[in-house]
């Protein structure tokens, strides 16, 4: 079983990202579970969401303490939240930023990948709505969920034209990440 923690701010779609991952993993024939940190999401406030993906039904209901992966949607959170907390040494953190891992200076054994999701979002969606670009990048970096399954999951949540654009953003990010790795 793999565990993912997403850090974002209220309104940035961390919970919906977790939900889409859970749907997509299930499409892949895996078991999944996604949940927010309990207690009222307020726009702008730091929020966390969690995903579990495994090959057996997931019965565990406790919170995630030692994630295999961390996704950071917004580097301004580095000042307020310990995003590395509990991250497994052989894990990975994916950060949405134009900076390099060195510039971020994160103190961790885990792999650090930085990715300019905001840029891609602005380019394709015309707005800094970063979750689908981050999803694409995450998929390319981990192979945890297939792109084939992510697309319908994205469309389920964003119907119509918005869905097309978001799928495009995810795909673009996916390809970009694949090239880089």
């Amino acid at each position, binding site marked *: 079983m793999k565990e993912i923690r997403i850090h974002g701010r209220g309104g940035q779609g961390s919970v919906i990202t*977790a*939900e889409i991952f*859970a*749907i997509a993993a*299930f499409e892949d024939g895996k*078991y*999944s*579970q*996604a*949940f*927010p940190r*309990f*207690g*009222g999401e307020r726009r702008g406030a730091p929020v966390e969401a969690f995903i579990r993906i495994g090959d057996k039904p*997931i*019965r*565990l*209901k*406790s*919170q995630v*303490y030692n994630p295999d992966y961390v996704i950071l949607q917004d580097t301004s959170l580095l000042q307020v939240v310990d995003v590395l907390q509990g991250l497994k040494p052989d894990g990975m953190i994916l950060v949405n930023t134009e900076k390099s891992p060195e510039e971020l200076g994160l103190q961790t054994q885990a792999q650090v990948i930085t990715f300019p999701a905001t840029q891609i979002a602005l380019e394709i969606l015309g707005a800094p709505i970063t979750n689908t670009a981050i999803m694409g990048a995450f998929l390319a970096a981990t192979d945890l969920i297939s792109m084939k399954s992510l697309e319908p999951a994205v469309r389920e949540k964003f119907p119509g034209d918005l869905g097309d654009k978001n799928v495009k953003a995810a795909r673009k990010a996916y390809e970009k990440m694949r090239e880089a790795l």
Partner: protein
Amino acid sequence: MTMGTKRVMEGSMAIAEAIKAARVQVISAYPITPQTHVAEFLAEMVANGELEAEYLKVDAEFSAASVVFGSAATGARSYTASSSQGLLLMTEVLYNMAGMRIPVVITGMNRSVSTPVSIQPDHQDTITFRDTGMIQLYVEDSQDAYNTHIQAFKIGEDRDILLPVLVAADGWTISHTFEPVETFPQEEIDAFLPPYNPLYKLDPKEPVTFGAIAMAHNLMEFRYLHHQVMHHAKKKVEEVAREFKERFGQDYGGLIQEYRTDDAEVILVAMGSLVGTLKDAVDEMRETGTRVGVLKIRCYRPFPDEEIRRVLSRARTVCVLDRSISQGYGGPLTIDVKAALHNQRGPQVLSFMAGLGGKDVTIESVKGIVEKAQKVADGIPVDEEPEFVNMNWNIV
């Protein structure tokens, strides 16, 4: 056996899907976290015409409960949901509808009770309904929530039962968690759950008086009859769960559910979403040879005392995990389990306060509980007072 459609959805949606599948006719609700998503999903279903129901948005939970009380008495299948303070505000109506034998299904989306203010999950709210005379079922996950809500109508509306049924589901852990849930075709649900056919209803064609006054010569007799029906409901809960399993292949237990208890020396007893974590913990501990199992109590009222006795009398130590507290005595579930084992040469019962106000219970914490139980089994003395699990002792 019917195959359903499995998809990832929020626990609240699983409940809303069940309410839709049950063809509920009158819904009334008032917003409170973490129940709100259910109220919102149902509003959406009614707004889209997916669900043919009257949906009354009311001035308080007291009115929400009252509305469904009135609509069920008129013969419409009726439903409401709430959490915490909102549930407590309904309390008086719940006693009322149970005594009047009006079947309504109510979701108690579990949340702690003020004060201190908390929107985190525990069972403090619904546990106070112990003596309302309602049937009370606690669910383990979203699938269980879906199944149980559909079963609840069948149990409550049965002519031999006629009681409101409370389905308690942990707030957040179930309400706000996305996981795969299998839902079933409408015609299959219809075949399982026929339309509500009340014994009595408000109808000018056959006028009856609801809510009459009893006196000293018959009040206790009415209580006795209600108590008898609750006993009878034990069979009905089992029967309906069995039929659901046969039709839909879903098995979350009837009154109780045993997990690896056959040869267990230590048995963990709990209700609600904690059970999933306990099962995982048991699997891990079994790998290292610890003989431990789980007894889930799915039906809290009527209380399955005989069934519990049958399972627990085989164990050496029983650990009851309570998600609520009766201040000044301890865990309500522990008290009931101890009472069920009274006069038995049975296991020692240890009490654990776990998961109050959203305090997390991890596999590690469960291992700690089992270690204590093993000490008892080995004759090593332990503190017999209820243990508060994962306490932050620095601040008390």
